[in-house]
């Protein structure tokens, strides 16, 4: 009897990600922690290593506080804590794109204090010129050489093309799943959709593709579709724990779309299979509408498209404390959606979550939209 695949399966995958990575490592292959949305994972996959999203989730910072000031981006602070606690003992390498000042600083500090895991910094370009795209391609080439030595595996053209195909397949499947959320009610909740994406960032892609295909084949049969009074979109950086979205959906909203690193931004764009692989990968990663070099108009347009396509009634901007790039963008995005008459709510949060206070604000927002 074939196991039924429901959204629950992806929650389990995500919850057991440490076991999955540890199991992978026992086969003698490498595990590479990364910031999945901005690290060319295809290279890691092609070297037969497992790329996994770095989850910086801590509630206390007793170890990190020795190295990072309290005003460091809360995500990086959490990551420092869990790495120092050796919670991810299976990691061989962390590959970090140079997205923000906290991230750049984190890399430098880590290099000073530890080589377990090793750390590698990729320059992620801050503009969208042809030159920046070419430079990022060179940067990917350098990363490829590094990984080849590190993993002891030469990446052939065929390996690279295969990696692109597998990743594109995952992106297409995730997009297909996302499009279903246009239905009323959507067949999956925001929490479930997040867990599908997060598990994609931590599970071997071939397995994830298989499970996604089964999910898509069976999802129409779902009878207990999630309910919610108003259709919301969440916008922000990486949301690496579903708890914050749970608070939103427990407050009467149903999340039907997003503009998150751990959401649409992770898979919306494909790598062009007609172009030269490295160039194509570079182009794909540098055209994601993000706070890291995109004109703000690209982000506004993306939000506008999503709001329209998914019949969104309100936007919740989520920002982890001290996340500078998103706090800056929010100034303009908040104004822009206001001008377009789209109601929005901005929530800054950190761990431990203050659920009660967050819930009160979201409920008031949902009430207003009802």
């Amino acid at each position, binding site marked *: 009897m074939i196991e039924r695949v429901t959204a629950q399966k992806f929650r389990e995958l995500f919850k057991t990600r440490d076991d999955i990575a540890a199991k992978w490592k026992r086969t003698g292959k490498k595990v590479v922690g990364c910031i999945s949305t901005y690290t060319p994972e295809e290279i890691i996959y092609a070297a037969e290593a497992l790329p996994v999203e770095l989850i910086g989730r801590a509630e206390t910072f007793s170890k990190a506080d020795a190295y990072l000031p309290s005003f460091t981006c809360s995500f990086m602070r959490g990551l420092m804590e869990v790495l120092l606690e050796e919670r991810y003992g299976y990691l061989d390498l962390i590959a970090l794109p140079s997205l923000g000042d*906290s991230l750049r600083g984190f890399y430098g500090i880590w290099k000073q204090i530890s080589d377990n895991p090793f750390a590698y910094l990729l320059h992620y370009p801050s503009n969208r*010129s042809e030159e920046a795209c070419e430079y990022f391609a060179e940067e990917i080439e350098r990363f490829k050489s590094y990984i080849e030595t590190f993993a002891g595996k030469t990446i052939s053209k065929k390996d690279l093309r295969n990696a692109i195909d597998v990743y594109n397949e995952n992106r297409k499947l995730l997009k297909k799943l996302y499009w279903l959320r246009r239905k009323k009610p959507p067949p999956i909740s925001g929490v479930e959709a997040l867990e599908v994406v997060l598990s994609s960032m931590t599970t071997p892609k071939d397995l994830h593709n298989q499970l996604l295909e089964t999910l898509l084949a069976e999802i129409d049969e779902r009878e207990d579709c999630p309910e919610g009074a108003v259709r919301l979109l969440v916008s922000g950086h990486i949301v690496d724990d579903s708890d914050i979205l749970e608070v939103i959906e427990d407050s009467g909203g149903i999340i039907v779309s997003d503009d998150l690193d751990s959401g649409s931004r992770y898979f919306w764009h494909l790598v062009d299979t007609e172009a030269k692989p490295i160039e194509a990968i570079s182009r794909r990663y540098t055209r994601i509408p993000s706070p890291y070099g995109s004109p703000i108009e690209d982000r506004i347009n993306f939000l506008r498209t999503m709001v329209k396509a998914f019949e969104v009634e309100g936007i919740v901007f989520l920002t982890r404390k001290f996340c*500078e790039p998103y706090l800056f963008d929010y100034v303009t995005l908040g104004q822009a959606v206001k001008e377009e008459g789209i109601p929005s709510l901005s929530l800054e949060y950190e761990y431990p979550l203050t659920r009660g206070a967050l819930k009160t604000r979201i409920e008031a927002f949902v009430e207003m939209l009802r």
Partner: protein
Amino acid sequence: MSKRARRSLSAAREVTSLVAAHYMSAVQAHGEGRWVAWVTAVSPPLEILYSMGIQPLFPENYACVATVMKASRNMFDVSEAYGISRDLCSYARCVMGSVLGGEAPFGGMEKPDFLLSTKNVCVVYMKWWELMAHTLKCPLYVIDSPAITDKIEEYHVRYVDKQLRDLVSELRKITGKSLDEDKLKEAVKLSDRAAELWRKVIEQRRAKPCPMGVTDSSAAMFPLVASAGTQEAVEYYGRLLDEVSARVKQGVGVLENEKFRLLLSGIPYWHHLRMFNYLEEKYGAVFVHELYTATWGMASLNPAKPFESMAFKSLLNPTNMPIHWSRNWISGLVKDFDIDGIVLLSSRSCKATSIGNLTIQKVLREEYGIPSVVLEADHTDDRVYSEAEVTTRLDAFMEVLGAK
């Protein structure tokens, strides 16, 4: 108590009028039909701008001036009311207050024709400049400097070099003016000369007693920030060097009785510069070097290879360099300047200059036995400054250094 021996250097006192003249020069530039650009403060290609007749203005310096003039609070209020988080760069919040129409020194900065941002200091520079460009509806050019992870490689330089050349052709499109290569070479020569003189001034501070303290030094770096590439800057640093050298020859120091020699890391807390007087007067402790002010004299320029050397200079910015580079730099300075201890200023809203401080402190202590103290406040926002706390920490630190 140690009496301060001298008044400020006369070259440092000149700076007040130079600053006012600088902000006026943009008004004048517009009057003459020339272009005005708002640029980031550390190694933007000023030489290109000056040789094309474009007048640069420095929002970062403007925030600093507004703070020294005690005019920044109202500017913070305006930008925070607009939705700019209090956790964001206080320079940015201060300037945005003016951009959004808040009351500000000199009636606000002359509006720019375009904005130019470099990423060699921080990623926030980019985000701040994007916000200004959007608010002012101005074109924005970004020089995407890669952060250095080990040493500056040929490919880093090539990438920035290429972007500088692109900038020139973009500027030709919008201003209708071409770059005169001879003028550029001349500006590069002048810029290099001013930086060289500044390095010589810094070298003079190895003398005991030290001829120039942090307050004068923080003022005297202004012409290099704003006017590198002009004859005026070269003349200014000539005068400054003469004055500082004369003090050294006469054995005159900032303090009559110099007891401790300190090194400063980080951006001065502009609203409480009197913190430095406190150390001088109470402990006979003088800052003989600052990483911050030295930033503007890091690299030489080569008029024969203007683009390449400007690119290199832009990359060789301390916050763009890895921590092990800073560690080597600092430990070398401690030896060369016979430094007793280090004061590291962290700023809540400036990750780039603050995030590594605890690690650097640990490394300096463990590997070199150098004592240091990390303070935490904000470089521009005096609302998060506690004088009592800072004084207590400084007192404790001076006790560690052996002060009675």
